[in-house]
C-alpha cells in the first residue's frame, strides 16, 4: 500500500535489531540529540500535548497530560527522586504488539524511553517486561548496554546535565500487573494487587515517588513527535485520537498480521485490506476487539471507526482483533474467557474473586449442556455485580465479552 505513514514500523525488516549502528544510520537517536540540544522538558511536553498522543495500552489517557503532571510534581521527598516505568507487561490474549516492537526495533523504544524519562526529570527508569518474554528481555538488555556505550544512557548523557539509569525488571507471570498500580506493587516486592486511587501514581507511585507509567507502544511514538513536532502528528489519523496504531489481526483471516494503520480506520478495512479477508470457505460471525477483555462486533457494525473515544461504543483496548467464523464452538470461547479471568483475578476484591469463579463454573456447565434455570438468573446477577462493583477494570473486563455473547449472539435462547 502506498502513502502509508509509518512511525513505529518504519525500520521493521530493514535493520538488524541487534545492532545500534544500523539504527543510528537509519536516523536513530537524532530525536534524543534534538531534545538535549534544542529543547527544554517544558517545550517537549508541550509538543506531546499538542500531538494529542494518547495511551495505547487501552485506557487512551492523554500522554502529554500524564507526563506534565509528573514533571510539575514538586520533588517533595528527601532525595527528589522521580521514576519512569515502561509498561511492557503485555499479557492480554491475542496481543503481541509490544513484543513485535522489541523484536524488530528495540532502540526506537529505548530512545522513546530515554526522552520521556528526561522530560519528567527521572534519573531511574524501569522497563517492566512480561516474565514470559525471555528472549525480548535479553534483546532489550543488549540494547541498553549498546546505548550506554554510546553515552545515550548513564551519567552526563551526550555531555549534557542529564543522568539516567535504566533497569529491566522481568515480571513473574501475572496479567493484573499490566495495571499500573499493580505493576508498581510488583516492583516493590509485594503481591501484584491494584491500589486505591487517588493518590495517583503521578503523585505517589513507586516507593512513594511521583511515577509515570506508560505503555511501550505509546513511548515508541515519542521520538517521531520530538523530531517532527506535535502539529504534524495531530494531522495523522482521526481527530479524536491522532496517530497510528498497531493492530494485531488474528483468527479466521487469510493473513494474520501486525499492521500499523492510522487511527480512524474502519474495522472492515482492517480485515479486508490488511488481513486479506476471510479464509476460504469461512463465514464471518463476529470480531472481538481488544483482546479477551474486548467487546464483540457483529457484521452490521463492521463500518465502525477504530479510534480512542470516551463515548465510543467499542473501546479499542490493546488493538487486538480476533475474527471468529461460524464454525467456532462458542462455548469453548466462553470457557476460554471465563477461565482466563478466573486464573488472573488477583483476589483482592470479592466481586471479582467470586464472580470470575462462578462465571467459570457456569461456562463449564454451558459447555456440557447442563445449564439450569437458576444458572440463568445467577448469570445476570454475577455479570451486573462484576461490571458495577469490582475494584479494578479486570472485573469489568471479565463481564464484557460474556455479556456481549449473551446479548448479541443470543446465546441463552436455545435453552429456553
Amino acid at each position: 500500500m502506498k502513502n502509508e505513514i509509518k512511525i513505529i514500523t518504519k525500520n521493521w525488516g530493514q535493520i538488524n535489531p541487534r545492532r545500534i549502528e544500523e539504527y543510528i544510520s537509519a536516523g536513530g537517536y537524532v530525536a534524543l540529540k534534538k531534545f538535549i540540544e534544542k529543547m527544554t522538558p517544558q517545550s517537549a511536553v508541550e509538543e506531546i500535548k499538542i500531538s494529542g498522543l494518547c495511551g495505547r495500552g487501552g485506557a487512551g489517557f492523554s500522554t502529554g497530560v500524564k507526563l506534565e503532571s509528573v514533571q510539575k510534581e514538586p520533588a517533595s521527598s528527601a532525595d527528589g527522586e522521580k521514576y519512569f516505568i515502561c509498561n511492557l507487561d503485555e499479557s492480554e490474549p491475542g496481543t503481541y504488539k509490544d513484543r513485535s516492537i522489541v523484536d524488530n526495533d528495540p532502540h526506537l523504544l529505548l530512545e522513546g524511553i530515554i526522552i520521556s524519562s528526561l522530560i519528567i526529570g527521572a534519573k531511574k527508569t524501569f522497563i517492566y517486561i512480561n516474565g514470559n518474554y525471555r528472549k525480548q528481555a535479553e534483546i532489550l538488555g543488549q540494547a541498553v548496554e549498546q546505548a550506554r556505550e554510546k553515552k545515550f544512557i548513564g551519567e552526563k548523557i551526550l555531555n549534557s546535565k542529564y543522568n539516567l539509569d535504566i533497569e529491566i525488571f522481568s515480571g513473574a507471570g501475572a496479567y493484573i500487573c499490566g495495571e499500573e498500580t499493580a505493576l508498581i506493587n510488583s516492583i516493590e516486592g509485594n503481591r501484584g494487587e491494584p491500589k486505591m486511587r487517588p493518590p495517583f501514581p503521578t503523585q505517589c507511585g513507586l516507593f512513594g515517588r511521583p511515577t509515570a507509567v506508560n505503555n511501550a507502544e505509546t513511548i515508541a511514538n515519542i521520538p517521531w513527535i520530538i523530531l517532527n513536532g506535535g502539529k504534524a502528528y495531530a494531522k495523522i489519523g482521526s481527530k479524536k485520537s491522532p496517530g497510528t496504531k498497531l493492530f494485531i489481526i488474528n483468527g479466521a483471516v487469510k493473513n494474520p498480521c501486525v499492521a500499523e494503520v492510522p487511527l480512524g480506520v474502519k474495522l472492515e478495512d482492517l480485515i479486508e485490506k490488511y488481513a486479506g479477508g476471510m479464509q476460504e470457505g469461512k463465514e464471518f460471525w463476529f470480531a472481538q476487539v481488544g483482546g479477551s477483555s474486548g467487546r464483540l462486533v457483529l457484521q452490521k457494525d463492521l463500518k465502525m471507526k477504530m479510534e480512542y473515544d470516551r463515548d465510543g461504543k467499542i473501546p479499542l483496548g490493546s488493538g487486538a482483533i480476533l475474527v471468529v467464523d461460524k464454525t467456532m464452538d462458542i462455548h469453548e470461547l466462553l470457557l476460554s474467557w471465563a477461565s482466563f479471568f478466573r486464573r488472573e483475578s488477583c483476589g483482592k476484591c470479592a466481586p471479582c474473586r467470586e464472580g470470575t469463579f462462578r462465571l467459570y463454573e457456569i461456562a463449564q456447565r454451558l459447555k456440557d449442556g447442563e445449564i439450569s434455570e437458576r444458572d440463568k438468573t445467577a448469570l445476570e446477577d454475577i455479570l451486573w455485580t462484576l461490571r458495577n462493583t469490582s475494584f479494578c477494570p479486570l472485573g469489568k473486563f471479565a463481564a464484557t465479552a460474556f455479556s456481549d455473547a449473551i446479548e448479541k449472539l443470543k446465546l441463552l435462547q436455545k435453552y429456553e
Partner: protein
Amino acid sequence: MTTEKILLNFDPKMKNLLPALKKISACFGYVDENAAQKVADYFFVPLSKVFETASFYDLIKTKKQPSLIIQVCSGANCAVESAYKIIREIENHLHIKAGDEFNPNVKLEIISCLGQCGSGPVMIVNGNVFTRVMASNVVGILQGYL
C-alpha cells in the same frame, strides 16, 4: 548452586525480592520453607511477607512440582485454533484431568497468554515451547518425555 549463593547476586532491596524468588524457584523447581526463611532473613522481612509475594505469581512455585509439567494455552486465540481439542487429547492419553494435582508425576495445566498468539495453539512441556500444535501430533510430542 545454593540459596545463599543466589541471594548474594542481589542487593537486599525490596525491588529485588521478586527477582530473587524467581531465580530460586527456577533453580530448585520451587521455593521451599527453608529457602524462604533464608530470603526473609536476607531481605529483613517476615517469612509471611516472602510467601505472600511468592504465592501470588505464576512463575514462582511454592510446592514441589511433578517431573512432567504440560501446559496448554487456552487464550481466546488458541481456543479459536482448537486448543480444547488438544487438552482433551492429552487428558485421554495420560488419563489425567487438567488442573488436578492428584498425580505426583505429571500435571496438566491450562495457562494464560504467552504472546505467541500468531502461532497458536501453544503447548509447553517442561519449559519447551511447541507452537501450531495439532491434536494429531500431541501423542508424538509427549512420547519424547514419557
